[in-house]
C-alpha cells in the first residue's frame, strides 16, 4: 500500500529520476498485487474471495482438457508429423502416409456440403421468409432441433439402413457424404434461420418501399445481410462433420487410396477420423504414433475451419447495422 502512494507521488513530481525511488522488481510487484487481492478485512470479504477463487478454479478445469489434448497430441504425435505423412499413401503393413484419409475427408465434406448446404439454406429461407409463423414453422423447428441432438452413431445406422441398403447405393463416397449431409442439415438450417431472424424487419421494408419484390428483397437484402451468420453456421457444421467417425463406419467403407469411381467398391473412401479409430485400435506401436499424428492433423484442420468461421463472423457483423 505504502509503495503505491510513493509511486504516484513520484510520478506527480515529474522529475522521477531525481527522486530516490525504491526499485520494485516484477516479483515483488506481483507479490504486492497478490497481497492487495488477499487483503481480507471482514467475513463477507472472505466469502467473496473464496467464491472468486472457486470460480477461477472451475474455469481452469473446464478449459484444461483443451490444453491437455493439444499437449498430449503434440508430445505423442508431433514426431510423426512429417511431410511424407501428408503426401504418401499407406504402403505395406500400413506404413507410409495418410494422404488417402486427407483427400477422403475433403471429398466427403465436399459431397456433404454440396448436398446439405444448399438444401438447408434454402429450407431456412423458406421457413423464415415465406412460411407464416404457426404450425409448419414450429414443426420444422422442433424436428431440426431434435435432429441436431441425435447421436452421430444413429445417423450412421440410418445411413447404412436407408442409403446403403434400402436405396441400394452401396458403401462409399456417396453414402458417406450423404450421411454427413443429413448430419449437417439441422445445424445449418437453424443457424441460417437465426441469422435471417437477426436481420431487422426495417431493412426488408426499405426494400419493399422502393418497389422490390419478395424474392429480390430476400436475395439482395435479407440473405446478404445475414450472410456472415450463414457462413459461420456452415463452417461450424463442416468443422463438426469433419471429425465424425460414427456416421462413416457403415457407410463410407475404407480405402488405402483415393476413390476412382462415384459408386461401387472403387468409391470406398478413407477419412481422418476413421483412420484414427482404425490405427488406435491396432496394437502395432508405429500405428499408435501415426494415430496421434493423424489426430493432430485433424485437430488443426477443424481448428482452422473454426478460426475462419470466427473471423468472418466478427469481421462482417461489425459492418452490419
Amino acid at each position: 500500500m505504502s509503495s503505491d502512494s510513493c509511486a504516484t507521488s513520484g510520478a506527480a513530481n515529474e522529475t522521477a529520476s531525481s527522486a530516490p525511488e525504491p526499485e520494485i522488481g516484477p516479483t515483488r510487484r506481483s507479490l504486492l498485487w497478490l497481497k492487495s487481492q488477499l487483503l481480507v478485512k471482514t467475513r463477507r470479504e472472505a466469502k467473496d474471495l473464496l467464491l472468486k477463487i472457486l470460480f477461477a478454479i472451475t474455469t481452469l478445469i473446464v478449459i484444461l482438457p483443451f490444453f491437455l489434448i493439444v499437449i498430449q497430441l503434440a508430445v505423442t504425435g508431433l514426431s510423426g508429423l512429417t511431410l511424407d505423412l501428408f503426401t504418401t499413401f499407406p504402403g505395406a503393413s500400413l506404413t507410409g502416409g495418410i494422404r488417402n484419409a486427407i483427400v477422403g475427408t475433403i471429398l466427403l465434406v465436399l459431397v456433404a456440403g454440396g448436398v446439405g448446404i444448399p438444401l438447408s439454406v434454402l429450407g431456412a429461407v423458406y421457413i423464415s421468409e415465406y412460411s407464416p409463423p404457426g404450425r409448419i414453422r414450429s414443426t420444422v423447428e422442433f424436428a431440426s432441433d431434435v435432429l441436431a441432438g441425435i447421436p452421430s452413431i444413429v445417423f450412421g445406422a440410418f445411413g447404412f439402413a436407408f442409403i446403403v441398403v434400402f436405396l441400394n447405393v452401396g458403401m462409399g463416397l456417396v453414402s458417406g457424404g450423404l450421411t454427413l449431409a443429413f448430419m449437417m442439415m439441422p445445424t445449418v438450417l437453424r443457424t441460417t434461420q437465426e441469422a435471417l431472424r437477426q436481420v431487422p424487419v426495417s431493412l426488408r421494408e426499405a426494400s419493399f418501399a422502393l418497389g422490390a419484390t419478395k424474392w429480390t428483397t430476400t436475395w439482395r437484402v435479407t440473405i446478404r445481410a445475414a450472410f456472415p451468420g450463414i457462413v459461420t453456421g456452415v463452417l461450424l457444421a463442416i468443422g463438426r462433420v469433419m471429425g465424425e467417425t460414427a456416421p462413416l463406419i457403415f457407410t463410407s467403407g475404407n480405402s488405402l487410396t483415393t476413390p476412382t469411381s462415384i459408386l461401387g467398391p472403387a468409391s470406398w473412401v478413407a477419412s481422418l477420423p476413421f483412420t484414427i479409430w482404425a490405427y488406435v485400435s491396432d496394437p502395432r506401436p508405429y500405428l499408435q504414433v501415426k494415430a496421434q499424428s493423424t489426430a493432430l492433423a485433424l485437430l488443426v484442420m477443424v481448428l482452422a475451419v473454426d478460426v475462419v468461421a470466427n473471423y468472418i463472423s466478427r469481421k462482417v457483423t461489425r459492418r452490419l447495422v
Partner: protein
Amino acid sequence: MMTARTHQIEVYDLSTWFGPKAVLKNITCHFSDNAVTAIMGPSGCGKSTFLRTINRLNDMIGNFRMKGRILLEGEDIYGPQANVYELRRKIGMVFQRPNPFPMSIRDNVKYGPRLHGVKDDNELDAIVEKSLKRAALWDEVKDGLDEPAPNLSGGQQQRLCIARALSVDPPVLLMDEPVSSLDPISAQKIENLIVELKKDYTIIMVTHNVQQAFRVSDQAAFLYLGELIEFDKTRRIAEAPADERTEAFITGRIG
C-alpha cells in the same frame, strides 16, 4: 365521383383493422401537392398505420384489413388493376430509424433504380449524384461512395435513406418520424431538407413532436384513437385548434 384530379393523394372513408382491432376509423382527407403535411397524434393513435397504408406496406402483415379508397393520381391503389411495385416506386418512404442496406453508399442509392430496370452505369452514377445532392449528403460522401453505408453517422445514414427514396423519383414521399432517433443537429439538418424538398415532392410526415410539425408543415392532421379530429392548414391549427382534443394535444396535456 372523380371529375378532375385535384390532389396526388386523396383518401376516402378509410378504415383499417389489425385482426379484430380497429386502428383507423373513416378517414377522409386530401393531401396538398408540393407541401408538407404533418400527421400528429399521441402514441398508438394510428399515425404510422395510416402512412403505411398509403404505400401498402401493411399488406405484408397477415391480419391487416382495410376498407375505403386511397387514390394516387386518381387511381385506387387498392384497386384490382393496381400494381403494388409501381405504386411503391411512386410513393417513397423514409423510416423512423435510419435503415441503410449493409452495402456501399453507392449501392444503396443504386438499389432502387436497378429494381426498375436502369442498367446503364453512367445513368446510375448520375442518379447517385443527383439523389445524394438532393438529400444534402453529396459533399460529405462524394470521396467515399464505396464505403459501407453503416459506417456513416446516424444523421448521415438518414439522409442517405432519403437519397435512396429519392433515387426512383417518387412524386410522393412518406416520412415516419424521420428525425426522432437523431441528435438535435442532425434533426435540424433533416428538417431544413424536408422544407427544401417540398418544392418538388408531396411530403406526408408522421411526427410525435408538435413543435416540429409547426416548424416544418403547411398542412396538419391530428389523429386521436384512430379518428381524424382535425385536418387543416398548420397555421390555423396552431393558432386556433377547433377541437378541444387537438388543443389538449398541442399544449401537451395529452400524448
